């Protein structure tokens, strides 16, 4: 079942390519529906009967490659498919018939999703490298596709960041293979002990740093705002919502998996990601507050929100930290997808890219603004929303381990998020200037954003199942 989650997007992506430029939407949507069903079925199966394993080629690790679906990966798969399907519907309505970005959109999205799903399932460090490259190049392609000079420059910046990131990761893999003779994460868990040679420490450092660069953690975030802010709205949504999470997921995986005996020994190391995360929360929020372009504001908000994810590393000794992190991943994923989608609709309708140009949209595009507002609630961590639950869990964990600073960062981060979210809403609630023109937009655009935003809020009323899923190892 889990293998089909990888094969299906590959299949419809190549099918869409063969059908020719700007074709292939229906295979894509059919495939995405099937994937969504598969992801739910997989999650249900895992909750019922524990983590699942698939030995590719029948060989099994360490000779072959294993695919492993535990609670963490199943949750990420679920999130990816949940976001991808509405965004695909959105994208279909978003691109105009003659938009050059539409020509190869579907094959690129297909490869992107295949890379994501393969990454979440893989239990082999080198195989993960290949999935990272698949993911990275597809993402760069989506940013650049049909774009102007600004998008191309952003894509190049993104490309070099992602290549250096995966280069560092690959060097780490090379060192691990050199030391232990295997790259299977399952085998490595038992091999890497607290007395591991220095080389393994360096390898771990290289891999984590490379992945942080790919996750755009402060101060490696420089590439994210131009890329996410400049791409077409459905692409921005997909990149901000799930693609950056993939490398975060990987850091988490390595941290609690193969490198767990190292991170336990070095008690100071756990503060390194948390420190960067804290800085990311403040710097990202500050830049978002200052931003004048709507999509830049949202992109910087991603920088800030990614910071929260790294706050869980000092708390991982408690059982709930993983759950809190995944809750935040879900909250931000759904909300950010909704927010970029809503922003795309607003920009399309008003023709204005600036926050200042939004006066009066509350009246003209209520559904879209509602979606934006609901997504904003999640980002601020106000109840009832998944973001609130994540915040609650984080604060409670921080208090139970006497890490006051983390609780403080989470609370202040939420308030800073309120500043930039409401700087948009305040503008939207102003009366429209008499000469403003709002071109009518497709209802599909309005409602897909709304569905995503509503999901991010409703998850805040029922997080039990998700937490149960994440707990399966």
């Amino acid at each position, binding site marked *: 079942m889990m293998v089909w989650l990888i094969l299906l997007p590959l299949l419809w992506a190549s099918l869409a390519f063969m059908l020719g430029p700007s074709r292939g939407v229906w295979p894509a949507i059919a495939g995405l529906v099937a994937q969504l069903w598969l992801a739910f079925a997989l999650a249900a199966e895992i909750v019922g009967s524990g983590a699942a394993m698939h030995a590719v080629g029948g060989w099994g690790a360490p000779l072959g490659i294993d695919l492993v679906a535990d609670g963490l990966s199943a949750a990420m798969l679920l999130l990816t498919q949940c976001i991808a399907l509405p965004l695909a519907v959105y994208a279909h309505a978003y691109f105009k018939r003659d938009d050059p970005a539409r020509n190869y959109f579907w094959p*690129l999205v297909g490869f992107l999703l295949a890379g994501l799903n393969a990454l979440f399932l893989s239990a082999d460090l080198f195989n993960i490298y290949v999935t990272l490259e698949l993911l990275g190049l597809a993402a760069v392609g989506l940013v650049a596709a049909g774009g102007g000079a600004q998008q191309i420059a952003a894509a190049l910046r993104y490309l070099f960041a992602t290549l250096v990131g995966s280069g560092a990761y690959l060097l780490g893999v090379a060192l691990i293979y050199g030391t232990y003779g295997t790259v299977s994460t399952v085998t490595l868990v038992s091999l890497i002990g607290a007395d591991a040679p220095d080389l393994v420490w360096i390898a771990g450092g290289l891999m984590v740093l490379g992945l942080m660069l790919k996750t755009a953690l402060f101060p490696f975030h420089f590439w994210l705002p131009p890329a996410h802010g400049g791409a077409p709205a459905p692409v921005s949504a997909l990149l901000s919502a799930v693609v950056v999470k993939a490398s975060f997921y990987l850091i988490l995986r390595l941290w609690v998996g193969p490198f767990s005996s190292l991170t336990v020994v070095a008690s100071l190391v756990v503060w390194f990601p948390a420190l960067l995360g804290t800085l990311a929360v403040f710097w990202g929020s500050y830049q978002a507050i200052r931003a004048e372009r709507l999509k830049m504001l949202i992109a910087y908000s991603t920088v800030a929100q990614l910071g929260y994810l790294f706050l869980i590393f000092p708390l991982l000794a408690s059982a709930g930290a993983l759950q809190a992190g995944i809750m935040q991943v879900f909250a931000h994923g759904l909300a950010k997808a909704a927010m970029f989608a809503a922003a795309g609709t607003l920009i399309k309708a008003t023709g204005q890219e600036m926050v200042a140009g939004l006066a009066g949209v509350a009246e003209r595009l209520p559904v879209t603004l509602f979606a934006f507002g609901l997504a904003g609630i999640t980002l601020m961590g106000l109840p009832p929303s998944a973001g609130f639950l994540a915040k609650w869990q984080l604060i409670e964990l921080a208090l139970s381990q006497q890490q006051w600073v983390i609780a403080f960062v989470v609370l202040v981060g939420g308030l800073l998020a309120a500043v930039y979210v409401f700087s948009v809403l305040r503008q939207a609630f102003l009366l429209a200037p008499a000469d403003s023109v709002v071109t009518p937009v497709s209802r599909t655009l309005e409602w897909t954003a709304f569905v995503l935003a509503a999901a991010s809020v409703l998850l805040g009323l029922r997080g039990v199942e998700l937490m149960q899923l994440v707990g399966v190892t």
Partner: protein
Amino acid sequence: MKRLLVVLGAVCLIVLLLGAMHDLAPASVELHAAVAANLTASGVEHPVTAVLLNFRGYDTLLEIAVLLLALIVILAIGREEASNAEATVDVRLLVSPVLQTLAKLATPLMIMVAFYLLWAGSFRPGGAFQAGAVLAAAAVLLHLAELLPSWQSPGARLRLGLAGGFLIFLAVGAGSLMQGALLEYPLEQAGALILLIESGLTISLGLILAGLFLLLSRDDGETS
């Protein structure tokens, strides 16, 4: 400032790594032994090919996807319409008749080499990648000799050729998944299936690698 930091970091990395790499204990897992032990079950005799297409065939599947993806991205980036065509004329005249003759002679030879490499891959160095690369090199040579034009946008048949190898691979994977595990070949058909995949890959790889070149060179391409 940035320069200093980067250089310092690079030097640190070198020193740390070189220091740590010496007197490393032998690896606890010895995969080359496992490869040798399972070679007979893999369907090919050459260990590297066995790893590439059987033990870690899944890596290769994704890698072909990466290559195809790169080609699609290049197509998706698009190109400037009718970019200053007049500036490109002078270079054309420099192609000598000698080169053209050479290219004409070399091409069939290179195609033969490619087939040899493909066939040899199952028991000695060689295989789909090398074969595909030789095919691509032939195409590049023909292009340099003005005998093969740059691609503008690929037609349906060419798209089929580009994606075909990947699709064959994918189909074999899906078929094997329905029987049991992904890319788990039945023992007696392993050799045949690998040859099928390799043949498809050779053509597609050749086309894709050539395509990377022929698409990139189109910016100043044959607009006339």
